[in-house]
């Protein structure tokens, strides 16, 4: 995985709360056997009409949203299924970070493992971001801060080891494989 230090971008805002993984990537696109190419199905039902044409009013389809790497969403983003296809689709589309007041456990975990930054902020910061779509925001992983164009900044919580892995491009599987002696010792001890 490529190291991630900073994401600086304008935002796209989807103010809805409880955006579930079925909205992010509907189940009928899960029959893929690779990770690539899911970006075109991201938010498929909201993004396209029944004929497959983009809905001009949907936030991602607006001209000013093109190239944005930060998605700001309402509370409890990513609830629902464990499909890693959700962060894959967001990454494949071009997002590098998602921001909400609350992010569902499995989705947050999957995001950290695939290099999509899950950023949890307080209510006031979220309100400001939702009220200012397109704002130029800087997310710095080293200092774990999100800085608004006003110069105000907030610290966001991120699990220490995930942060280390993202900053240094460390592969967690490699870390686990490096613990094989302890794993074997455990297996002997409990006779599993």
């Amino acid at each position, binding site marked *: 995985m490529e190291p991630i230090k900073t994401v600086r971008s304008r935002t796209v805002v989807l*103010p*809805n*709360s*409880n955006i*579930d993984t*079925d*909205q992010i990537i*509907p*189940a*009928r696109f*899960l*029959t*893929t*056997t*690779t*990770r690539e190419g899911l970006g075109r199905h991201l938010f498929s*039902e909201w993004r396209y009409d*029944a004929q497959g044409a983009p809905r001009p009013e949907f936030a991602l389809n607006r001209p000013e949203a093109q190239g944005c790497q930060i998605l700001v969403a*309402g*509370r*409890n983003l990513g*609830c*629902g*299924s*464990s*499909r*890693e296809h959700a*962060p894959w689709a967001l990454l494949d589309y071009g997002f590098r970070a998602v921001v909400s007041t*609350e992010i*569902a*456990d*499995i989705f947050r*975990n*999957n995001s950290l*493992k*695939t290099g999509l930054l899950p950023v949890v902020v307080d209510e006031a910061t979220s309100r400001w971001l939702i009220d200012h779509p397109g704002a130029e925001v800087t997310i710095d992983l080293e200092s774990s801060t999100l800085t608004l164009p006003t110069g105000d900044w907030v610290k966001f919580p991120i*699990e*220490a*080891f995930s942060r*280390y892995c993202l900053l240094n491009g460390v592969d*967690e*599987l490699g*870390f*686990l*494989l490096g*613990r*094989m002696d*302890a*794993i074997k010792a*455990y*297996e002997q001890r*409990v006779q*599993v």
Partner: protein
Amino acid sequence: MFEKVWEQHQVIPETADTPAVLYIDLHLIHEVTSPQAFTVLRQRGLPVRRTDLTLATMDHSTPTRTEQVFGGAPIAIESAAKQVRQLETNCPAFGVELLGLRDSQRGIVHIIGPELGITQPGKTVVCGDSHTSTHGALGALAFGIGTTEVGHVLATQCLLQRKPRTLAINVSGKLRPGVTAKDLILTIIGKIGVSGGTGHVIEYRGETIRALDMDGRMTVCNMSIEAGARAGMIAPDETTYAYLSGRPRAPQGAAWDRAVERWKQLPTDAGARFNKEVDVDGAAIEPMITYGTHPGMVVPISGSIPVSQDDPVFAKALAYMGLEAGAPIKDQTVNVVFLGSCTNGRLSDLRSAAGILRGHKIAKGVQMLVVPGSQQVKKEAEAEGLHKVFIEAGAEWRESGCSMCLGMNGDTVAKGLYSVSTSNRNFEGRQGVGARTLLASPLTAAACAVRGRVTDPRELMNG
């Protein structure tokens, strides 16, 4: 109880800098979330470390039409067929046991784990599926993982995990006639909200939980994730042991006696503290049904759709559902009824629905799909003649799988139609593009099928 299972499975405890290395006793895999994990193993030249602790089946994208499962007819969706073939290639290549498409032990992964007796109290169980929480009904610590983590477990039998917090949900009182485990869990989600359990492992406790049979306990734990909790657990007791005893992969003979002794140490010690506690009055619960686009948008079946001013998300949900704030949910039109899924696809679910349907026909214009949770459930239901009840009522009797819960295999609800479903998610488009899902119990679903509109099952139980 959670603490005990966690402690017993720590290969390396967590520190401020690193999560715990947690050992996994049972890894269940299926066709949808495993292909990319096997690709990683291939790229890195890694084997599956413990094939004896790994079991594969196929459920999400498999057909439910008998001719496509057993009759040699091709699987209608080519990408789904490819996914099935890929699992058929990956499993033998890596030495993983596969309960394949035509296997008599195949079924929804969360149905067959307990059914085979391979899910056991005190085990750590993971699967690339959020409803892995189901297995917690037997006192296992069971949670859903993503595909990257599926790869971690395949390669090392371990996961890197931070210790979650604990949430006790204490339920007291006797459930009234017509009120089921499904109504109980929908009530809980309505009460704590769809993110009320985030960051927590739930332990369901109290006399009402103890009185549930194993199928009901699985329904409750299954929907823990709908409250945001990755895992839900119920302490093992005599009901659990009676359920597991004699199952094909449960311990036998002297090993069984030793296992039960071990399992008896698992329940939470008196006086143990939880990070959070919630009390629920089981005796006050009515049959419940959802009206919106997440499982927390739920009302008693005799109730009305809430009114919520100045909430655009709420308004959007009702617009999607085509329902009006303030209107009663009862008598709302129903077009499709789905009985099945890892939430309510077990034998007792089919029995309770059949109890309502016996001697009735489903209403004109209603399509009802009955999809057993596993081939074993199907066989047992047929042995009791339940399939005849469904077929005579006008329902379709299918082969097992996830089916219309998420419509990956092509079993979908058409745009704009109302589906009363015994599954777990009423998200927009979950059962098909534009489909409108109302979640309910098997009893309620069967009553809705008979009347063709939202119906309190108690009206059909007394007559």
